[in-house]
C-alpha cells in the first residue's frame, strides 16, 4: 500500500521505486569520505604527548610491562624455588656492591639497639646475588616481584576488557532503544549499583575457590556499571545525529547502527574509562590477596607479596618495598595516562 502511495505522489519525476535499493547492513555505508577523523586522532596524539605526566605514565607502564614479561627470566631463580639456607638475605647487586650500596648488608634494630649484619658473608655465599634480596623462604624477590606484576597486570587487563565489553554493550543497547527497555535496564542497574562491591566480592569468593579466574569474575560483576553509564550517555548524545539517521534511512538494522556506526565514535571516552578501571582492578586484586582471598601459593601477585612482606616488614623492610613501589607506580601511571587521554580527547575538560 505504502509503495503505491509513494509512486503516485510524484508522477512526473521519472523515477520508480525499483531504481532504489536499501543497502541495509552493507559495510560501505560507514566509510568516511572526508578525513576529518584522521586528523582528530593526530590532534589527540599531539595533545597527549604534550602532557609530561601522561608521557611519564606511558613510559613507566611500558617499562613495567617489559620487566613483567622478561624480568623473571633474567636470573636463574624461579618464583617458587625455595632455599631455606639462603633466607632473609638483603639485596645484593654485582656492580653496585663496590660502591657500598646493595652489598647485602642490612641493619636490624632490636630492643637492645641496632646492628648491621651481612647474611651473605655470614653464610659464606660469596658468589650468590639476590638483586632484591630473598624472602623468609629463601625465594628470590626480584623474580617474585616481576611474576607478581605479571599476574596482577593479566588480571587487571583481562578484567578491564571484559568490563568494557559488558558495560559498553549494556549502556549502548539501553541508550539506543530508550523507552521501556531503557527503563527496565536502568532499574536493574540501579539495584546492582546499590549492592556494595565489597559484599559481592566476598560472597563470590566464599562460594568459588580463590584463583585468577575467580578474581577476574568478581571484578567483572562489579566494575561494568561505570562503563555502561558512560556508553549510555554517549549513545543518547549521538543517536539523534545525522549520520545515524542516514544509516537508518539506508535500511541498516539496530545492531548494525549500535556497533558499527555509534561505537567507533565513542571509542575515546571508552578507552579513557578502561584506563581508569585498570588501577581499580589492580587495587581490588591486591586488597583481596591481602585479606587472604587472592592467588593461591606458591603463585604470587603484587598484593600477595605485600601481604607476605607485611609479616616481617619491621625486621626486613626490603622485602615489602619492591612490590609496593611497583604497584604504586603502576596505579599512578595508569591514572596519569587516563588523565592525559581524557584531556586530549576532550579539550574542554577542566581537571587537574
Amino acid at each position, binding site marked *: 500500500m505504502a509503495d503505491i502511495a509513494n509512486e503516485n505522489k510524484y508522477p512526473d519525476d521519472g523515477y520508480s521505486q525499483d531504481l532504489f535499493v536499501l543497502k541495509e547492513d552493507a559495510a560501505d555505508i560507514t566509510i568516511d569520505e572526508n578525513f576529518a577523523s584522521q586528523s582528530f586522532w593526530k590532534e589527540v596524539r599531539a595533545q597527549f604527548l604534550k602532557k609530561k605526566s601522561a608521557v611519564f605514565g606511558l613510559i613507566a607502564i611500558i617499562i613495567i610491562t617489559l620487566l613483567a614479561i622478561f624480568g623473571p627470566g633474567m636470573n636463574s631463580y624461579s618464583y617458587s624455588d625455595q632455599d631455606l639456607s639462603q633466607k632473609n638475605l638483603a639485596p645484593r647487586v654485582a656492580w653496585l656492591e663496590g660502591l657500598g650500596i646493595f652489598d647485602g648488608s642490612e641493619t636490624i634494630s632490636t630492643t637492645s639497639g641496632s646492628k648491621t649484619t651481612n647474611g651473605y658473608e655470614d653464610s659464606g655465599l660469596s658468589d650468590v646475588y639476590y638483586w632484591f634480596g630473598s624472602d623468609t623462604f629463601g625465594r628470590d624477590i626480584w623474580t617474585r616481584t616481576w611474576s607478581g606484576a605479571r599476574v596482577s597486570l593479566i588480571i587487571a587487563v583481562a578484567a578491564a576488557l571484559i568490563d568494557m565489553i559488558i558495560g559498553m554493550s549494556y549502556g549502548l543497547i539501553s541508550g539506543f532503544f530508550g523507552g521501556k527497555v531503557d527503563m527496565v535496564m536502568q532499574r536493574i542497574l540501579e539495584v546492582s549499583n546499590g*549492592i*556494595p562491591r565489597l559484599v559481592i566480592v566476598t560472597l563470590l569468593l566464599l562460594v568459588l575457590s580463590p584463583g585468577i579466574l575467580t578474581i577476574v569474575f568478581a571484578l567483572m560483576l562489579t566494575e561494568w556499571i561505570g562503563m555502561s553509564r558512560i556508553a549510555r550517555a554517549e549513545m543518547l548524545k549521538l543517536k539523534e545525529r545525522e549520520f545515524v539517521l542516514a544509516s537508518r534511512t539506508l535500511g541498516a538494522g539496530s545492531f548494525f547502527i549500535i556497533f558499527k556506526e555509534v561505537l567507533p565514535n565513542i571509542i575515546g571516552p571508552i578507552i579513557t574509562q578502561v584506563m581508569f578501571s585498570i588501577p581499580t582492578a589492580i587495587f581490588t586484586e591486591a*586488597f583481596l590477596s591481602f585479606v*587472604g582471598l587472592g592467588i593461591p601459593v606458591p603463585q604470587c601477585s603484587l598484593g600477595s607479596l605485600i601481604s607476605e612482606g607485611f609479616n616481617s616488614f619491621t625486621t626486613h623492610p626490603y622485602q615489602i618495598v619492591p612490590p609496593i613501589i611497583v*604497584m*604504586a607506580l603502576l596505579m599512578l601511571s595508569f591514572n596519569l595516562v587516563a588523565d592525559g587521554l581524557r584531556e586530549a580527547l576532550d579539550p574542554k575538560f577542566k581537571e*587537574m
Partner: protein
Amino acid sequence: MRKYVLKRVLTAVFTLLVILLVLFILMQLMPGSPFNDEKLTDDQLQLLYEKYGLDKPIIVQFFNYVKNMFTGDFGVSYKISKNTPIAQLIASRLPISIGIGFMAVFIGALIGLILGIVAAIWHDTILDTIATIISVIGVSVPSYVFALALSFEFGFTLGWFPMLYSNSAQLSSSILPSVSLSMFTMASIARFTRSEMMEVMDSEYMLLAESKGLSGRALILRHALRNALIPIVTVLAPLIVDLMTGSLVVEKIFSIPGVGSLLVNAIQSNDYNVVISLSFIYSAMYIVIMLVVDILYGIIDPRIRLAKEDG
C-alpha cells in the same frame, strides 16, 4: 519532590530485599545442617525443625529471615567465638570502626577542601602543582600502603604514635589509621573542589560579585565555595563507602578490633554466619548513605531533582 523521594526509597528497599534474597539463597546452599548431631533421632530432628520454623514453606522461612535480620537477630557465630550471638560481636566492634571512619572522613574532607581551594585560587602556580602532586599520589596509592608506610615511619622508627590500636589510648592510636584511610578521600575531594572552584570562579555571577566591590575572603567563601560545595556532597557518598573497603585492610594492619577485621577473620575461618550478617550490615549502611545523600542533593539542587523526575 515527594515523588522523587518516594521513588528513591522504594528503589533502596527493593535493593535491600534483593541482597537479603541472595544472602538467604547462599545460606541454603552452604553445606551442613544446623543440627548435625548423629545421636538425634528422626523424631527429635522433626521437633527441632518445628521449633526453629525450618519445616515451613521456603517463602515463609525467607520472610522470617528478613524479619530476624531487621530486628538484629543474626544468629550465632560457629567458629570465631563459639555460640556467641553475632549481634553481640558486632555491637562491641561497630562503634570503633565508625569512629575511625568518621575521623578519616573529617580529616580527608577538611584537608581536601583546603588543598582544592588553594589550588584553585593560585592556579598555575607552584602551590597548584604541589596540590596536584599530592592529590594524584593520594588517588593512586592504596590506603594500606599509606598505612604500612605511616606505621613504619611514625610508629616504628620515630615512635611518635603507637603501632597497634589499644583501648587505653584510643585517640592517639587511631590517628595513624584515620590518616591513612583519609588519603583517598582527601585526594578526590581536592581534585573535585579545584575543578568546581575553577568553574564557579569563571562564572558570570562571580564577575558580578566582584564588580559590586566584594573581594578577598567574602568572595571566595560566601560566593565561590558555597556553590562549589554542592557537587562535592555527591562525591562524598561513594568515598564514605570506599572507606569501608579500605578499613578492612587498615584495621588488620593496626589490629583494630572493628567490624573490618571481624569480616577478614570470618572470611579466613569460613564463619559463614558472620560473613553473611556483616554483608547485610555493610549493604544496609551503604544503601542508607546513598539514599540520604541523594535526597539531600535533591533538596540542595532542584535541577537534579527535576532532571531525575523527567527521566
